[in-house]
């Protein structure tokens, strides 16, 4: 069936795009991982650009503090307590009826990511933790899918398009000489829990996420239209408060490096070897989260974490553990943290809720 392309007239004027590019977009399927600050901008712009099928995955519900930056949501969504992925689907249906949205209300993990990515032409990153990013990277490299990384917190952000080296080396981007190192070539290890500020503890300025996510969409449009040589070969790093824009070179990371993922094709994250585990603690309305054992990971710095968490409620910390009361979206939780990153989230029996609280307030 031929679709009316008139609404895309302005972008079809762009060189390298045209009607052919537009038809490619309409025939594309993209996995949008996470539908928060980055994810809403990504889903919004991809839908308006006419990407035919978006699979939007998110485990959270909308809350009032999201509205400052999560552009697809409004006050009614908060009142109705709608899951983010579903709210995005409804909003996009009003924005562009030519786009199909599959809303998936779930945690992304090693058991489901390959199925979610099935038939997709690219994976775009809107998640809030590195565990899921390394998982997406493994999936992208294993299946030869472009993966566009983006992250933002406070006033800083980073983004980078991965056109992975494949097993047979015959992907269109490799044939065009445009393959790039994978995320693990560049970041060997995820920051340990509690090491980095999160949007919940350090805040976030909406332009930081808008710039990074718009840039991710930009690279995705090049990918979906096959403009491989136009894809940015460097990693962008911005600080919109300190007024710095840097482009870091990455090419040597693949040429010189010994990446476990894209060179040795060892997909540890996808195999679940490095994933965190959740256990619902029977009869206690609590979930335990344990982190993968990594001898090189430093112990949690309770002093600094306690300082950040005090903004959300009372915190007590000893040498061995930290306990914080957290109010999140009207619910109350008690978070107990141990120095190796293990945590108990009291106030829920839902593993996904506990994981979300951990990612938001401790970070990973």
């Amino acid at each position, binding site marked *: 069936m031929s679709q009316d392309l008139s609404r895309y007239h302005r972008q079809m004027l762009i060189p390298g795009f045209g009607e052919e590019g537009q038809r490619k977009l309409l025939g594309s399927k993209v996995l949008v991982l996470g539908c928060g600050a980055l994810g809403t901008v990504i889903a919004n712009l991809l839908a308006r650009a006419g990407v035919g099928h978006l699979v939007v995955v998110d485990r959270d519900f909308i809350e009032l503090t999201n509205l400052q930056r999560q552009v697809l949501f409004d006050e009614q969504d908060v009142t109705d307590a709608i899951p983010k992925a579903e709210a995005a689907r409804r909003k996009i249906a009003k924005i562009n009826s030519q786009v199909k949205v599959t809303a998936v209300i779930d945690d992304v993990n090693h058991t489901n990511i390959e199925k979610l990515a099935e038939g997709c032409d690219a994976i775009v990153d809107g998640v809030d933790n590195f565990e899921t990013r390394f998982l997406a990277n493994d999936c992208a490299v294993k299946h030869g899918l472009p993966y566009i990384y983006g992250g933002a917190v*406070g006033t*800083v952000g*980073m983004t980078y398009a991965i056109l992975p080296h494949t097993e047979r080396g015959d992907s269109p981007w490799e044939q065009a000489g445009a393959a790039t190192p994978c995320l693990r070539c*560049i970041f060997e290890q995820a920051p340990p829990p509690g090491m980095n500020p999160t949007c919940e503890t350090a805040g976030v300025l909406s332009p930081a996420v808008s710039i990074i996510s718009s840039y991710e969409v930009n690279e995705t449009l090049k990918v979906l239209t096959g403009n491989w040589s136009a894809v940015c070969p460097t990693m962008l790093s911005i600080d919109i408060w300190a007024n710095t824009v840097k482009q*870091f*070179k990455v090419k*040597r990371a693949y040429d*010189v490096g010994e990446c476990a993922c894209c060179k040795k094709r060892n997909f540890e994250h996808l195999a679940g070897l490095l994933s965190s585990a959740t256990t619902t603690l029977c009869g206690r309305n609590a979930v335990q989260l344990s982190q993968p054992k990594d001898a*090189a990971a430093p112990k949690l710095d309770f002093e600094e974490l306690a300082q950040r968490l005090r903004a959300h409620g009372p915190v007590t910390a000893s040498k061995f553990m930290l306990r914080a009361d957290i109010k999140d979206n009207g619910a109350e939780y008690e978070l107990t943290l141990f120095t190796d990153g293990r945590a108990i989230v009291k106030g829920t029996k839902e593993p996904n809720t506990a994981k979300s609280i951990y990612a938001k307030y401790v970070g990973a």
Partner: protein
Amino acid sequence: MADNITVLIPTALRPQVDNQDTVSVAGGSVRDVLGSLAGKYPDLGKRLFTANGEQEINRFINVYVNDEDIRFLENLDTAVKPGDELSIVPAIAGG
């Protein structure tokens, strides 16, 4: 020697350097520069280096001389010259 290498400090580590976004130090190699930075700001040193003294940078932090990652140059022995910019870049997790 003049303090002629500019080190860009990421937001997450600014509390460890009196909230400065850049610090200028002297040195002929990345090891010199980061060593004297850690000497001046021990809390930053603790974040930057592994428990193994000042021999190895934590694997979740990248260091760039201008726009090149030191891991793919001469690592801590990478030479720096006056006017070079050294960026400390932790992976950004938020979103």
